């Protein structure tokens, strides 16, 4: 029984999503919107956590993957002229989301390849550059509405879809961490040279991290596009990427639960504190600095992180 426990949780979570989805119309639209954004941000932050936290490859281009996914799925459902609440809309939406993920993960593959040669700062700037290039290309494609944006996307995302994918992603990350791959990621993150020396294929692990992370960012993009029904390139600028990075850093890079908590908090807080909404980014920035100065990222801590705190790292020379 114990071996199947995560699978059981996954099924239960999806079922629960479906039950909650039945009541979604009784929630006020404003709260409903926040709840959906929470779900989307959990997917974005957790998927970035695979790249940044588990594999230790600092990526600043997550909004680019999200954009690719958003546009891919929007093009599919719009060209098939799917209207919501029809039976056919469900499989088509599912396929469009999966294709969104695939297109984004192909881009992740393209980004992952240079990352084999780069690390740290260079990788951060390169991924940021990739994100910007994706955005600029979309801005110049007239068939995608260029800078005017893509309108008339069917409103297909709902509670069930968003949190269904949240459940799947968490299930996947949970299994990933406890698998050989997860250990491989951690080895690559902690010391690339040592990992390579004991025979871990560093290249492969980095690419897998990018592809998996990008896949779910693409799905998050698709869910987002089918919730707001209007997307334009400026929604996917690098500030978006920074926001996702802040969620991961505040949650503690590599900590699954921490990142989920911080995604929830950082989505709710700006809404709850409307009065200080203008200070939001300043507060984010200060959070980043203070967390780094105080405790190197392990803010909430998790199973993995406690170990890292206890085991003092040697000072680098």
């Amino acid at each position: 029984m114990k071996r199947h426990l995560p699978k059981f949780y996954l099924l239960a979570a999806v079922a629960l999503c479906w039950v909650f989805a039945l009541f979604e119309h009784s929630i006020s639209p404003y709260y409903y919107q926040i709840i959906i954004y929470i779900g989307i941000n959990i997917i974005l932050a957790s998927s970035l956590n695979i790249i940044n936290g588990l594999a230790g490859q600092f990526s600043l281009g997550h909004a680019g993957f999200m954009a690719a996914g958003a546009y891919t799925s929007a093009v599919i459902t719009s060209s098939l002229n799917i209207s919501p609440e029809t039976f056919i809309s469900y499989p088509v939406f599912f396929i469009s989301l999966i294709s969104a993920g695939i297109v984004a993960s192909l881009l992740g593959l393209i980004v992952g390849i240079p990352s084999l040669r780069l690390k740290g700062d260079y990788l951060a700037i390169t991924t940021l550059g990739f994100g910007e290039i994706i955005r600029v290309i979309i801005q110049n494609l007239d068939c995608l509405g260029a800078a005017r944006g893509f309108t008339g996307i069917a409103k297909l995302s709902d509670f069930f879809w968003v949190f269904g994918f949240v459940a799947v992603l968490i299930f996947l990350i949970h299994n990933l961490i406890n698998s050989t791959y997860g250990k491989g990621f951690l080895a690559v993150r902690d010391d690339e040279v040592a990992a390579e020396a004991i025979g871990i294929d560093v290249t492969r692990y980095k690419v897998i991290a990018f592809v998996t992370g990008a896949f779910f960012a693409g799905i998050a993009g698709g869910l987002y596009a089918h919730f707001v029904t209007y997307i334009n390139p400026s929604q996917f600028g690098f500030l978006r990427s920074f926001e996702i990075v802040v969620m991961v850093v505040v949650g503690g890079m590599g900590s699954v639960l921490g990142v989920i908590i911080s995604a929830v908090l950082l989505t709710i807080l700006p809404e709850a504190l409307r009065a200080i909404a203008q200070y939001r980014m300043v507060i984010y920035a200060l959070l980043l600095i203070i967390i780094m100065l105080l405790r190197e990222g392990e803010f909430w801590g998790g199973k993995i992180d406690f170990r890292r705190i206890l085991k003092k790292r040697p000072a680098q020379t």
Partner: protein
Amino acid sequence: MNQLLQQFINGISLGSIYALIALGYTMIYGILRFINFAHGDVFMIGAFVGFYLAPFISKTIGGSVILAGLMVMVAAMIICSLLGATIERIAYRPLRARPKLTVLITAIGVSLFLEYGGQLIFGPDPKLFPTLVPTTMVIDTKNLVIGSNSIVVIVTAIVLMLILRTIVFKTKMGTAMRAVSYNHKAAALMGINIDSVISFTFILGSSLAAAAALLYGSVYPSINPLMGIFPGLKAFIAAVLGGIGNIYGAALGGLIIGLTETFVTGYISPTYRDAISFAILILILLFKPSGIMGKFEAEKV
């Protein structure tokens, strides 16, 4: 032909601004081996210092525009160098022994803080940068227009780079900087105060960024708190292109990026302006990560 010449002059003037910013990146990287993400925002602060000080200074001084322009530049350079040194002291110094990623995230935090703090203080709307030195047309024919401001930009940039060269290669502090960038430990053993050398590097880099900001403002007079992001990123790309850590390389890289960008804007499409620099970055990192003039560093275990 005239259009080509026009683009060339514009490219050189934009490129020399990038070069000034790139020098700051490259010096800081040379010494600390990390990218000061906040450098572009120090540049932005420089522009706003100019914006607020210029009317005041030109009123007190009256008469000579050149003297007033110079005063504004010196003031902006002083204020930004203080800012740069403060950032280093508060945010980067405590993290010096920590992993690179920690410092990188902190730098992003500082950058976001300056950008959005700037939006709160200066307001998010674009402002018109005051003309420090009135623009006269040096050449003004039907299809070739060269304003005095491009000339001022190019000349000022050259003068500043020559001063920097003298500081880095002829003074005691410059020698110390080069020693620290070569090997922290050995430099410390030779009695060099590492902390003060690093502070000095930040002062030097930030003051160049401030000067670049004023030049930028005199060519593109619309300034806003987020204006530092793209020039900062492009200057960083210029530094990588030239070979990060190498000050001649930064100047060369700046010119190449400036020229490429103007030619792409002029002959292909202005919308690709921002993407082209990133494409250059990716290509250079893939094919020659050490840059044009940089030297290859093997990873030590």
